[in-house]
């Protein structure tokens, strides 16, 4: 047994990280600086802002899991989510809704966190399917997270595997309602519990560094 353990250590030591060969300075791409919570406006202004936010939901075009398959019909003519003010955006900077399509492997979870942090507030997260609630089918897999709300705040969960596009639309309706009522404050929740989220993230994401961009 010890032999095989040694061998495994050896294998682990041979494994190369994605950012191997970078200087220590470059490695720390991950943003550990604490963001600041932004208080909502007061009164009618915030109501108006929330109305506008609810009517213009830009989804981040990141198919994190199998749920992405139902985003395609949603975007196209059968369901046509554009008419509800929902449309995909290719870059996290411009998106305000993150649809987590079910399970998230550790590798993807890292990208989810990264993309989530790149999105500008206020931002909302939709969890699709069982996997985001309690692990779903992959509850005993070594590579998928069980509870999404341990890593990023989630506003709305939609059950199903996969949820039909209609269920997604209903989920968006719920989200719209929450935004209008000012209840979708996931971003501030994330900032307020930043340490807790970071600790959870660091527990599973061992290879903490980001890939080697040379920008």
């Amino acid at each position, binding site marked *: 047994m010890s032999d095989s353990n040694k061998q495994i250590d050896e*294998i*682990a030591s041979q494994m*190369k990280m994605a950012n191997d060969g970078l200087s220590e300075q470059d490695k720390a791409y991950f943003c550990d600086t604490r963001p600041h919570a932004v208080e909502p406006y007061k009164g009618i202004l915030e109501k108006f802002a929330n109305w506008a936010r609810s009517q213009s939901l830009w989804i981040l075009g990141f198919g994190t899991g199998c749920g992405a398959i139902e985003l395609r019909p949603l975007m196209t003519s059968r369901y046509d989510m554009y008419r509800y003010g929902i449309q995909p955006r290719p870059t996290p900077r411009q998106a305000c809704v993150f649809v987590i399509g079910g399970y998230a492997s550790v*590798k993807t979870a890292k990208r989810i966190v990264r993309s989530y942090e790149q999105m500008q507030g206020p931002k909302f997260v939709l969890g699709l399917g069982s996997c985001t609630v309690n*692990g779903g089918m992959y509850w005993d897999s070594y590579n998928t997270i*069980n509870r999404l709300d341990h890593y990023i705040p989630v506003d709305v969960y939609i059950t199903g595997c996969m949820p039909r596009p209609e269920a997604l639309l209903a989920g968006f309706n719920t989200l719209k309602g929450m935004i209008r009522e000012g209840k979708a404050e996931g971003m501030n929740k994330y900032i307020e519990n930043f340490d807790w989220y970071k600790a959870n993230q660091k527990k599973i994401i061992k290879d903490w560094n980001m890939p080697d961009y040379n920008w």
Partner: protein
Amino acid sequence: MNIIEDKFSVWQKRFSLSGFENKSSELAFVQVPADQTVAFITTVRDLDGYKHLVFFTAVDLLEDGVFRLTYMLHNYTTKHDLGIQTDISRDSASMESIHHLWPHGATYQRELKEMFGIDFPGSPGVNESFVLEGWFAMPPMRRDFDTKEYSEATFFPRPGRKTFDTQEYMKEQLYPSEAETW
């Protein structure tokens, strides 16, 4: 069906083959010692038309202390699949590389290194991670790796679940008396 049997007898003259398993007219398995495997694969590829590497994978036979590697080759002329199997020791598992025969062999080898910890010296990028990232535990496809245990320790199952065993529960409800407990 006879063709493969004929071929088998031809191969047997050069290689110490064993465990010939003729599953159907489309599929056969054969066992080769580890040191002859790549030579045998090269032979069947170049001389017998098994040009297509369908897949290459391993089975962890923990009880026997070996990994069973399976190279599945396909012959497009005879439309026949040949599974070439070889056993290598689980301890310090290492095998000759086939990336020079098929470029995608390197990908399979990279995966095997990561998932089973089988080394393929000389295979390009074999030490780079393939599907996992930041994996520090035992290679997960090894038989002695318990994925459920790992998952429960690493991720956070949502608490608050409780279940009752039918038999136990009925006992508690219907005959809790010690007199009927045996």
